[in-house]
């Protein structure tokens, strides 16, 4: 088995171009077999979206602006959710810098969700119910989770794995842009960019490096999140 290179997978979210269309949410549901919960369950606060669009209003009516911010697992380098798991169901992949979730190890203490400042972890309160044709579109690459386990965004680890294997078979390095998570693929305005920060030439590195618009969520907590946001409403002209 050849040594696979070290990675630092990252997501860059350009808030200027995000229109809040929710295409990423739908794509994620389809790709990752995320359970679709009933209306009553959503009202009870049990909606499950590995990526969600948080909508905030800015200003006072009528001079009001909607701000959208897509929030998914931030794949923190020093993730608070990891050490509290008593059964190593959530743990760190040092090589890829991913925050892994091992469903069949999880006993459902839900400690990780308490200690997750971004609240991007989801608990299966019931067994998932894929009705009718939805069952036919389940992704065979992704486990369907049972009741009682936690789940969260994986940066589409199955796609990362497949691309790396294809590159390995072809005996060539992984090209930038070859790994495309479902949300990135679906984004009509290309507000989401996925890439390897270890690769100095990647699109993600280019966007992050020296960019004054970049910020990370709750950076002061020191969790070292790996999702970078590019501030909206600050064009160079205004400044």
């Amino acid at each position, binding site marked *: 088995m050849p040594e696979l290179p070290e990675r630092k997978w990252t997501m860059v979210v350009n808030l200027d171009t995000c229109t809040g269309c929710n295409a990423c949410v739908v794509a994620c549901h389809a790709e990752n077999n995320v359970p679709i919960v009933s209306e009553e*369950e959503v009202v*009870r*606060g*049990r*909606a499950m979206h590995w990526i969600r669009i*948080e909508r*905030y209003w800015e200003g006072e009516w009528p001079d009001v602006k909607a701000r959208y911010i897509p*929030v998914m697992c931030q794949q923190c380098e020093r993730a*608070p959710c*990891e*050490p*509290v*798991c*008593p*059964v*190593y169901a959530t743990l760190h992949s040092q090589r890829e810098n991913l925050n892994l979730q091992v469903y069949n*190890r*999880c*006993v*459902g*203490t*839900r*400690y990780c*969700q*308490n*200690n997750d*400042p*971004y*609240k991007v972890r*989801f*608990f*299966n*309160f*019931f*067994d998932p119910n894929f009705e009718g044709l939805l069952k036919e579109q389940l992704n065979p690459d992704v486990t369907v989770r*049972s*009741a*009682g*386990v*936690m789940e969260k965004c994986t940066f589409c680890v199955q796609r990362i794995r497949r691309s790396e294997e294809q590159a390995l078979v072809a005996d060539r390095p992984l090209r930038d842009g070859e790994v495309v998570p479902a949300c990135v693929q679906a984004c009509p305005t290309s507000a989401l960019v996925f890439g390897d920060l270890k690769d100095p030439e990647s699109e993600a590195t280019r966007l992050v490096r020296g960019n004054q618009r970049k910020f990370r969520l*709750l950076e002061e*907590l020191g969790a070292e999140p790996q999702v970078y946001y590019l501030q909206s409403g600050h064009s160079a002209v205004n400044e």
Partner: protein
Amino acid sequence: METTHDVPIWRRPPPEDTELSHQLEHERRQHLLLDPRYPLDIDGGVLKPMYRHTWRFWLVTALLAGLVLLFGAIWTTQMILGLGITGLNRPVMWALYIVNFVYFIGIGHAGTFISAALRVLKIEWRRPISRAAETLTVFALIAAAMFPVVHVGRAWKAYWLLPIPTQREIWPSYHSPLIWDFTAIFTYLTCSILFAYIGLLPDLAMARDHTIGWRHRLYEVLALGWRGTEREWANQETALNVFSYAIIPVMFSVHTIVSWDFAMAVQPGWHSTVFGPYFVIGALFSGAGAVIMALVLIRKAMHLEYFLRDEHFDGMGKFLLLLSLTWAYFYFNDYLVPWYGQEPVEKVLHQLLATGSAAPLWFLMIFCNVVLPWTTLWSRRVRTSIPAIFTISVLIQVGMYLERYIIIPVTLGRNEFPYSWGVYLPNWPESLITVGAFALIGLLYVLFSRIFPMIPVWEVYEGQVLQGLRRIGRALVPTKAEPGD
């Protein structure tokens, strides 16, 4: 008073002086240890109530057993359908089950404290109440230990949290406070059971010598051949002393570690360094209240008025007041520092408690835990009035339960992202399971009280032998001999 060694303590003649005789009468009414009786009468006073099976006993037992069965049925349903049948949601992932866990562990602190700490400090009035307190500790710990299993999403996999070698070849992660918790509680439960059992041995032997039939056979096995030789007593004394000293730090560690389940997390309102001692005091506070309730109930149900007197409720009442003051001190510490800091999330939490939807809970908690004890327990008349001290103890349970409720589901509802805020309301499954857990402790307690002596006879007898009265001038002064001096 002059005593001669050949007269047994229960047959000492009263003093001839009438004033001294009156004083003696008064002291005997007040203090169990100055009121010795014929040993067989004392044995009988403990053993006879164990045979009392009135219709009330069966009614209570049946009711409690029914609630425990309901507990089992709901838990089974929850395992089949999923935790969705409870009121849990995102972000409130821990709620009533963890509240119960913390509450019952807290109850489990007082027994040891009363038995071990008061023993170490040689506080004599503890003697008749130690068994009732230790028993409550053990049963409360059993109920508490159940709740993490009831709480997890896949209860049938809960053994994965145990450090036992299995085919999975994955050791539990000692980074997680939950595993520290498991270690501390397991140690404490083991120590508590052994401690209670060592103290029970002479009484089991006593019961063995006074019974026939299945009881005799049971006590014969459990008494481990205790004969009451000098050597056995010396060994028992040593063992109890070792346990008393060893179990106190274990007790402190348990609730400190329980508090770390919260304090180690980045959740606002949890991330506090004062949580360790604050939780320990809270545990002792609710635990002491629960012991008073248990004492009142067994005194009434088993007619133990000879053993459990005003002096015991008086002593426990003072203890309760002291704990209330200490609890308030720690609560103030935990409240003032974040309030002064005025961090946005902490501010939101404080507003929620002071003027928001959680305000009724918060004010009721302050009333039960601070206002009520401070305004009543300073009075000896209140402390020695059984209905009053029982009511106060019940309200302290309410207050301490609310405190845990506020810390867990109410606090979890708020975090850094207003988008992810939520409100938890208990649903019927977890509410009934909570009732069932109280019933389980009650059931175990009721059954235990009919099989095992609820008053440590040997301790009472030992205390009565050591205790004496000495005449100084015109007054009688209680004195105590130190064994081994």
